[in-house]
């Protein structure tokens, strides 16, 4: 079944997630011989809230067709986000254009990959890469056996803990802050939280990222915690709070999972896009929208990565340079979501926060803003303030973010 080593391809994509599918779609459409390798057996499980933004939903339809029921959880959609505060009233913020999909990542990613038409080889781990003759030699392991690919271009679409990023920038991952998030699945005894919404708590005592939503008849309670800290304790604290504040009564947790996130790169415009013939995309490159929604940015950046390689292939330009020119618009869109000037005066999100504040009285509005600011103080220790402000001013004057800050 496996081709004899080494396998020559136009493009090797590492990872079989949404950014990989979007990238592969562009490459396959243009007739480039493309192989996707995936470490796990497909379809594979993925830790994710699955709440895709409307823009991402539209991208999926336009590129892969209408979503089949099997790629969605129950409830199948999410109307918006509810923000909760320690004392200010909770506010519902609806997504533009109606509810948005609640993706079952195990099936949605597999569906998108297959709809892209790309050749997939799963149970194949990326090990290392080196420059080859007019391309890149990638060493991988397929079910314990070494395998070699020779590709004209390599795309790293393998998520926050990207092995491709590690291979290209060995020092990078130790240089950025890491955030841990964990979630547990509970049987529901009584839950007054509206199942149509994704719930988020601006509560400094609970943690830097605290959320809850319904999935397939159970309630997810998730919390962010520092590396080395105790997830169970942070989680128990949230469950207790939900009971006291919202009257949520949950059975014991049945499943538990977590992952590390490279959060913060889109805030301070420190994306990592690769070197030479190796391109990095999706969350591996640092794309993460507000509310930690990475899927829509992964889809769009993946597509831009694919387009750039196609353009390079047909016009003989260096793909890396094309990619960095083209990715600027997605950087603008993603970093705008964290840019205080854009939040105050533009409308960078796919929901209107200021409009949702409308029905509240002036005193309540002030309380909401004050409690959000108090919550943001949790992040003060990263000392991003000056960088964010610097980038916001750069955006204001130059119309874009500083490309010199990209890795």
């Amino acid at each position, binding site marked *: *079944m*496996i081709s004899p080593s080494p396998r020559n391809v136009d493009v090797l994509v590492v990872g079989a997630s949404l950014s990989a599918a979007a990238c592969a*779609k*562009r490459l*396959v*459409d*243009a*007739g480039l011989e493309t192989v996707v390798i995936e470490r796990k*057996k*497909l*379809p594979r499980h993925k830790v994710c809230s699955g709440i895709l933004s*409307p823009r991402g*939903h*539209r991208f999926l*339809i*336009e*590129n*892969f*067709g*209408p*979503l*089949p*029921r*099997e790629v*969605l959880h129950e409830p*199948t*959609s999410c109307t918006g986000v509810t923000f909760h505060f320690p004392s200010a009233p909770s506010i519902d913020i609806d997504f533009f*254009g*109606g*509810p*948005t*999909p609640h993706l079952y990542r195990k*099936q949605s990613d*597999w*569906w998108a990959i*297959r*709809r892209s*038409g*790309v*050749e*997939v*080889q*799963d*149970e194949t781990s990326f090990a290392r890469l080196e420059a080859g003759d007019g391309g890149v030699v990638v060493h991988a392991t397929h079910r314990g056996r070494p395998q070699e690919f020779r590709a004209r271009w390599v795309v790293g679409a393998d998520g926050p803990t990207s092995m491709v990023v590690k291979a290209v920038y060995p020092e990078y991952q130790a240089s950025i802050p890491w955030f841990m998030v964990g979630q547990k699945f509970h049987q529901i005894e009584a839950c007054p939280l509206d199942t149509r919404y994704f719930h988020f708590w601006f509560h400094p005592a609970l943690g830097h990222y605290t959320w809850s939503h319904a999935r397939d008849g159970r309630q997810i309670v998730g919390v962010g915690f520092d590396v080395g800290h105790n997830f169970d304790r942070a989680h128990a604290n949230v469950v207790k709070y939900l009971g006291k504040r919202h009257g949520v009564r949950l059975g014991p947790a049945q499943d538990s999972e977590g992952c590390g996130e490279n959060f913060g790169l889109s805030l301070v415009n420190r994306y990592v896009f690769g070197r030479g013939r190796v391109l990095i995309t999706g969350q591996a490159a640092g794309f993460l929208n507000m509310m930690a929604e990475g899927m829509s940015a992964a889809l*769009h950046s993946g*597509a*831009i990565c694919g*387009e750039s390689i*196609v353009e390079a292939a*047909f*016009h003989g330009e260096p793909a890396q340079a094309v990619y960095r*020119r*083209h*990715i*600027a*618009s*997605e950087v603008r869109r993603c970093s705008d979501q964290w840019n205080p000037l854009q939040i105050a005066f533009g409308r960078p999100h796919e929901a209107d926060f200021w409009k949702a504040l409308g029905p509240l009285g002036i005193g309540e509005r002030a309380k909401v803003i004050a409690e959000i600011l108090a919550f943001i103080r949790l992040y003060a220790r990263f000392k991003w303030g000056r960088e964010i402000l610097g980038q916001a001013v750069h955006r204001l004057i130059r*119309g*874009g973010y500083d490309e010199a800050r990209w890795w």
Partner: protein
Amino acid sequence: MLLDPRTLRQAAPAATAHRDGGRELPVEPQARGTIPPDPVGPDSLVGIPRVQTNPSRWNGASWDAFVSDLARAGVDVREEKGTRAAFVTDAGGLAFGMPHGVVTARSAEQVAAVLSAAQARRVPVTTRGGGLTTEGESVAFGGLQLDMTGMSRMVWVDREKMLARVQGGMFWHDMAEVLRRQGLDYISAPLNFTSSVGGTLAVGGIDVNACRHGCSADQCVAMEVVTPTGQIVECSEDRNPELFERVLLGYGQFGVVTEATMRVRPYTPCRMHYLFYDDLRTAMEDLIVVVRSDATDYSGILTMKDRANNLLFAFDSEEREKDFFANVRPKLRGLTEMQFAVRAAGFYALRPWRIEEALWLYRRKKLLLPEFERPEHLRDGKMFDRTVVFSRAVWRHWGNRTMVIPDLATSEEKFIEAILRGNRVMRKYFAHYTLYCVAIRLSGNRPRYEMSCIPPDARDWAYGCEFEPMFEPGEYSRDHLQSFKNAIYDVGVEMRTSYYRFGGSMKGYIRRVFGDAVVDRQLEFKRQADPAMILNPDVVF
């Protein structure tokens, strides 16, 4: 597990599915043209139909058998990568697709052999003339690319009836070359060197004289068409009129135009005039006055952003020119170039913070205006080939490898509001841009206008505007450009207008703007004419 599309070719395509925990996951797309219910929720993405607009690449099932069929019929299919790669994108430069093979059309019989084999083997066939589509309509996402440029001859010219018979793949410019040796000219054609007659008839074809003569498709009196099932049929208003009306403005869904009989006229150079406006709305109001007066032979608006708006008009004869200046010019509020320059200098002197815009306008004027007055195209103040002048200017000074020109086509009543709204979108997305507006005269109420660039509520004239971004100072990703196009087209949906071009990657808008009843009727016609849905399959349905 290994999933290799090359092995999938052997599988029955409709049955390809993956089993997961006892659940079947559909792999193949829905039947073409239909829209399934969305399990996400009925109120999700309100107004946006569930249409895959970036088509899946055809999986190649039955390709080898198809090529053998054609070899037996004496048709040569080129499959080498170098040939196929020449067709990888269109003028839009945003859609990329690679055909499995290419046939260069030589005769109607050969095209018929291709289409009947494709129908039997269910192989998608994408036709291409000059490849001047902007949304990937002429890009083949697998299957066969039918390159029409092999059929590029003038068949005959009849000076008495003022008709010319041309092959479908002939470029308008080549047609003009043949006609002008005999003192003749085409009536109206796209302002572009390399658009083909057949391709133009399928979408419209807008010239600066469309205000007087209508779109190019309305200049056609008869056609030889190869239907999607491979019949060669002659059609006109009297012979097979239904087919005639479907193929004209039919987006290539109902047949391949192999020959067309076009009305021609005596060749005349034209004398151009320009008026300048600093206000876009005033310029548009004056365009309507000019069009309604029917006193010019050519008219249009060309702008630099919305600050320098140029109302251009031209005449084929001196009598009409005199008439116009006596009767219509006094009603217009446009300025001469000098008056405009003085006004603009005053405007920017009071607004020094807009110096960058002022400088850009000045540089643009210095670059562009001489292009329209190049001595090799002018004699005694008359322009000798407007197509050369405009085409050259367009390709040198607008766009780059990507031509992004979304548009709105409206009735007279909606024209000004639609364009002003589109202009706001333009300002949001780009630092620099051009708008290009013209009117299109309708020739009565014809079936061909249904689901076409002629909006359903237009009477006498339709008005259109192209929104053309400039790519300096930066480059933009396809995603940014697509979002921009969506935003322009959203204006069309909200105002119930139409578009000059709405196929390919913009086909998601077809149902939104024309409504289900119209689209389903057209879809039924398509299914009858093309049972396997193989001809230009990703363009409309």
